[in-house]
């Protein structure tokens, strides 16, 4: 075995370690890394580090994993990783495992599973069960019913909001002459622009950002909502999903893919604070600092799903809602409790947040989610600022 082989072997193993730690490293990247190593001084640590980092890694979040793996593998630094490669995945994931309450499709030890099997004939028999499901409160649904709900939600996803694009498209009733097409038509008539073509602004999807409360009080509703988000994200729509309880988690990367069960499983593993407490103000601050500032919310419709039970400081919530409001197109607040009779937004957090909210909706069942879809569609074109007072009585 010559020296070149040793480098290749070492690099391939290193790639495998990174993959186990959750970084996507394809063979193409390994090849690039090998070419890069040819161009640098292999004795210099900083050069090797930079060459591998810029070829193997493609996002900032992965740099930390890379750093640890690099130390452990190339420098045999046992303090970093406990020496053994397979532990890498565990060593890096320092987040607590989600409690069993999180939806875990495909997990046969799930106690829900037995319930489901007993209910199976019922579910299979009823085509019109759709109607019944529409009005069932999410908190009383079993897992199978939740999955059936998803099919309904896929239909809902089709009505997300739009905004005018900078691009133009040909349209007979457009506002501007389309020179390219006009000239083309003129060619047919000996260069005389008899027939004029017009264009207008094309409409493209407006981004929707979901912020879902996954604290104890909200857990059953959020579970249903994650199904909705999965449907939206996997349909390739411009949707960003976040969950918050005691901390903020970006869910979007976990929700893609064709297999809803697998992505739900990934998502529930990614959320460390299912059914915990809530500090809405802190979570929104984290959101504004990390994502809002980068422009994620600019021009997008923000949907907050929460009961507004704030266990932290209410004044911070007001501050962060104001910041959020300045950066987005409109805010829709979905509160499952609003579906209960005689509800009034008395929770301190809810009362604080309401002045910044454009549309305030119930969200306790699928019928209510349909009204969310309707509000989303309407919110695309213009700011439909509704008086909170009128909405309270509408509940």
């Amino acid at each position, binding site marked *: 075995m010559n020296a070149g082989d040793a480098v290749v072997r070492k690099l391939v193993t290193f790639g495998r370690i990174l993959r186990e730690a959750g970084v996507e490293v394809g063979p193409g990247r390994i090849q690039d890394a090998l070419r890069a190593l040819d*161009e640098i001084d292999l004795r210099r640590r*900083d050069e090797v580090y930079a060459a591998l980092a810029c*070829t193997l890694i*493609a996002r900032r979040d992965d740099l930390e994993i890379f750093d640890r793996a690099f130390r452990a593998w190339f420098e045999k630094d046992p303090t970093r990783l406990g020496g053994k490669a397979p532990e890498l995945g565990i060593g890096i994931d320092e987040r607590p495992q989600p409690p069993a309450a999180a939806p875990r499709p495909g997990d046969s030890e799930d106690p829900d599973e037995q319930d489901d099997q007993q209910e199976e004939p019922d579910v299979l028999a009823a085509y019109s069960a759709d109607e019944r499901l529409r009005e069932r409160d999410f908190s009383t649904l079993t897992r199978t019913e939740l999955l059936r709900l998803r099919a309904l939600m896929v239909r809902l996803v089709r009505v997300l909001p739009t905004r005018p694009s900078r691009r133009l498209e040909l349209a007979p009733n457009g506002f501007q002459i389309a020179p390219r097409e006009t000239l083309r038509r003129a060619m047919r008539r000996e260069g005389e622009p008899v027939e004029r073509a017009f264009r207008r602004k094309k409409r493209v999807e407006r981004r929707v950002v979901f912020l879902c409360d996954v604290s104890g009080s909200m857990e059953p509703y959020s579970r249903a909502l994650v199904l909705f988000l999965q449907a939206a994200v996997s349909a390739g729509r411009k949707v960003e999903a976040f969950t918050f309880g005691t901390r903020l988690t970006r869910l979007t990367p976990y929700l893609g893919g064709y297999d809803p069960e697998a992505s739900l499983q990934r998502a529930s593993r990614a959320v460390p604070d299912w059914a915990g407490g809530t500090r809405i103000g802190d979570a929104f601050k984290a959101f504004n600092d990390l994502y809002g*500032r980068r*422009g994620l919310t600019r021009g997008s419709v923000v949907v907050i799903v929460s009961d507004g039970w704030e266990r932290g400081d209410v004044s911070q919530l007001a501050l962060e809602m104001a910041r959020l409001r300045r950066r987005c197109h409109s805010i829709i607040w979905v509160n499952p409790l609003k579906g209960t009779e005689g509800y009034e937004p008395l929770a301190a957090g809810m009362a604080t947040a309401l002045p910044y909210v454009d549309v305030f909706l119930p969200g306790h069942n699928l019928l209510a989610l349909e009204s969310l879809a309707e509000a989303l569609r309407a919110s695309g074109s213009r700011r439909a600022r509704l008086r909170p007072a009128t909405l309270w009585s509408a509940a």
Partner: protein
Amino acid sequence: MSSNEMRDSIDGVQQALAERSYLADRGLATTVHLALKLGKPVLLEGEAGVGKTELAKVVADALGARLIRLQCYEGIDVAHALYDWAYARQMLYIRTLEATGDARQGEEVLDELFGPRFLERRPLLDAIACDDEIPPVLLIDEIDRADDEFEAFLLELLSDFQVTIPEIGTITAERRPVVFLTSNRTRELHEALKRRCLYTWVELPDLEREIAIVRARVPTAPERLAAQAAAFVHELRTLDLTKQPGIAETIDWTQALLALGQEELEAGVVDLTLGSVLKFHEDIGRVRDADLQQLVEQARTAADAQTPAG
């Protein structure tokens, strides 16, 4: 430093950039070196104001190459990025032909109408069709602002460095341009695009390096002032601010202090010029609430530790 040495080694890159007042660390220099050697685009990500765009400019200068810049925005399309036909001139030309009674065949006229003469080159085509001795540096700035579709289009361009214009044919780059893409991470870029690039996260520098950068960029500033300004900005970064000041802000601010004839940092002047460092009303309020005098003192101490001559 000739552009050849810049191409040969990492030391060469580092030195050539330093001569142009850009102090790159070893990691960044390695990436630039690899980009030149492997002919791959570089994707630079990092907070605003850490010198992503500046790097491309300086590399172009060091190579003696032309810098072609494409600023991305939402809704950017082929007509803005690649090429467009000069419709108005085409129309006028047709009229002129009619008026002068030009007797050429239609085919011939058409070829002329849709030939290079009436083609308006936009930055991407400019970079590919460029016939300079030294290939140009193409800077695709803030790619995260463009739409997904535009990214897909870039993907094709960046792998083959050729474009097809239906009326003319395929144009292939004779020499591949050096490509830099920058992103502020307002959204995640597509995996496929990233795979074609060398990825680099540009960090804010540590105090020592930042002082060196300020001194390189504002050579007329007294050493103490440069050190204290950099140290003060470092203090600011530890506060909980909406927008952390970048290196660009430190340099701006030092220039502002210099213009006011300052030799050293003083709380009064800091208060007056805070607007060159902080760009949010809330942040300015927060810093004024935190003891300004004390921050200045801390910055002075930190700066003294960095400049032994004192």
